């Protein structure tokens, strides 16, 4: 330990014969250790710079040269972004909290079950070792799980930039595919999830071609049952539009229904009404509508069973 291993010398020779291994375009690397420092760098560089969190979406995009930036600002060395704060009725996750930490946390499973349930659906466990909660939400892929969970749970997203700190509700955060309220010069610093309390149940359902793929379509749902009736419902769809979408009409239709009589098939159909998902290699828009309605029904069925079990 402590000495530079001699294999570096062997490598020196290799490098002469094999210099073509690099795929992303060149960039300058910045590794701030505080949020203030990160914001200073980002504000200075404007749209030439991109925040690098866990890198599990950004690095493949760079490797495929789907995108390129002159500067990457790695927020992985900012300790303040790694914290998990358990408040009285909420949990606030620093944006660099890794997905595996959420998966491994019994406390998050108990307090924010929807977030916990969605986590194993993200990529594979090797991806979740590095992928982060803030990275996934700020990347805002339309088929990703965490943005839909944030939307379903009305998460509050804290953004810090040159003009200070602001909190954006999830309902206003997602602007389009890969586009959010986080502007050039700003960093998503934390995500706050509020607990629902007793009698609530949650579930995520999705359909993907292969395990670990992005979903063709999926739904993140929650219901709360008080005195045998549904008092609160949330339905967020992903993979169905350029942004995750709440199905507010279907939610409203469920409120007040008896838990054992709720028409979940109708709720699923109502949830996709008015949506116009696009065609791609994996599925046509018409198939997505059918899958969307089905995953809503399935997720609501499970969520309701969990809520009833809990309130019983």
């Amino acid at each position, binding site marked *: *330990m*402590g*000495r*530079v*291993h001699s*294999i*570096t010398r*062997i*490598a020196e020779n*290799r*490098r002469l014969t*094999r*210099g073509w*291994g*690099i*795929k*992303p*375009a*060149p*960039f*300058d*690397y910045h*590794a701030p250790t505080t949020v203030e420092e990160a914001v200073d760098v980002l504000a200075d560089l404007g749209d030439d710079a991109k925040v*690098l969190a866990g*890198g*599990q979406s950004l*690095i*493949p995009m*760079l*490797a*495929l040269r789907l995108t390129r930036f002159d500067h*990457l600002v*790695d927020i*992985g060395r900012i300790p303040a972004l790694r914290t998990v704060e358990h408040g009285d009725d909420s949990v606030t996750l620093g944006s660099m909290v890794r997905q*595996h930490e959420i998966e491994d946390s019994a406390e998050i499973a108990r307090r924010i079950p929807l977030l916990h349930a969605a986590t194993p659906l993200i*990529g*594979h*466990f*090797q*991806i979740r*070792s*590095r992928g982060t909660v803030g990275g996934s939400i700020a990347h805002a892929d339309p088929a990703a799980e965490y943005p839909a969970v944030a939307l379903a749970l009305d998460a509050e997203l804290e953004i810090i930039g040159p003009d200070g700190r602001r909190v954006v509700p999830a309902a206003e955060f997602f602007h389009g595919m890969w586009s959010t309220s986080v502007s050039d010069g700003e960093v998503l610093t934390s995500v706050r999830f509020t607990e629902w309390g007793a009698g609530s149940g949650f579930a995520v359902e999705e359909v993907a071609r*292969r*395990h*670990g793929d992005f979903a063709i379509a999926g739904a993140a749902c929650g219901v709360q049952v008080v005195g045998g009736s549904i008092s609160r419902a949330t339905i967020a769809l992903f993979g169905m539009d350029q942004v995750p979408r709440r199905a507010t009409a279907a939610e409203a239709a469920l409120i007040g229904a008896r838990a054992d009589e709720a028409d979940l098939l109708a709720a699923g159909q109502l949830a996709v009404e008015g949506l116009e998902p696009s065609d791609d290699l994996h599925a046509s828009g018409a198939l997505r509508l059918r899958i969307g309605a089905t995953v809503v029904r399935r997720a609501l069925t499970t969520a309701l069973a969990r809520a009833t079990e809990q309130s019983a």
Partner: protein
Amino acid sequence: MNTTDVSVTVNGRACSGTVEPRKTLADFLRDDLGLTGTHLACEHGVCGACTVIIDDRAVRSCLQFAVQVEGSSITTVEGLATDGELNPVQRAFMNEHGLQCGFCTPGFVVSATALLASNPDPSDQEIREGLSGNICRCTGYQGIIRAVRSAASEMRTTR
């Protein structure tokens, strides 16, 4: 060309190098450190051939820049054996015919080692799910699953 110094511990040994920030950890391991056991196939996080262990967790080394893992402790497939003796997963891959051409094997062995470290008694379903992030183009999956099952049972009895 802008470069950054990187110091990491690889297979228990301190290693350092000077790299372009855009160099992936996989390329750093292979080109700068000469550790070519970590294989590269898709290079965008799909195939799992480049899986290594960073600070006790399996990670795709093509999805990290070397500069990001500054100060980390990394185990590659070369670091799994102890004093020339294969680890139980490597042994099981040999005994159960868990490889055909062998190209994907380092990634499978590293993923399976990480999987069994966190879940010593996985069900067949959990093994399949745990290995779903690794692709074997020879499609020799049955032997691979058998190998992981057998390694798990050996590791449980010898602990």
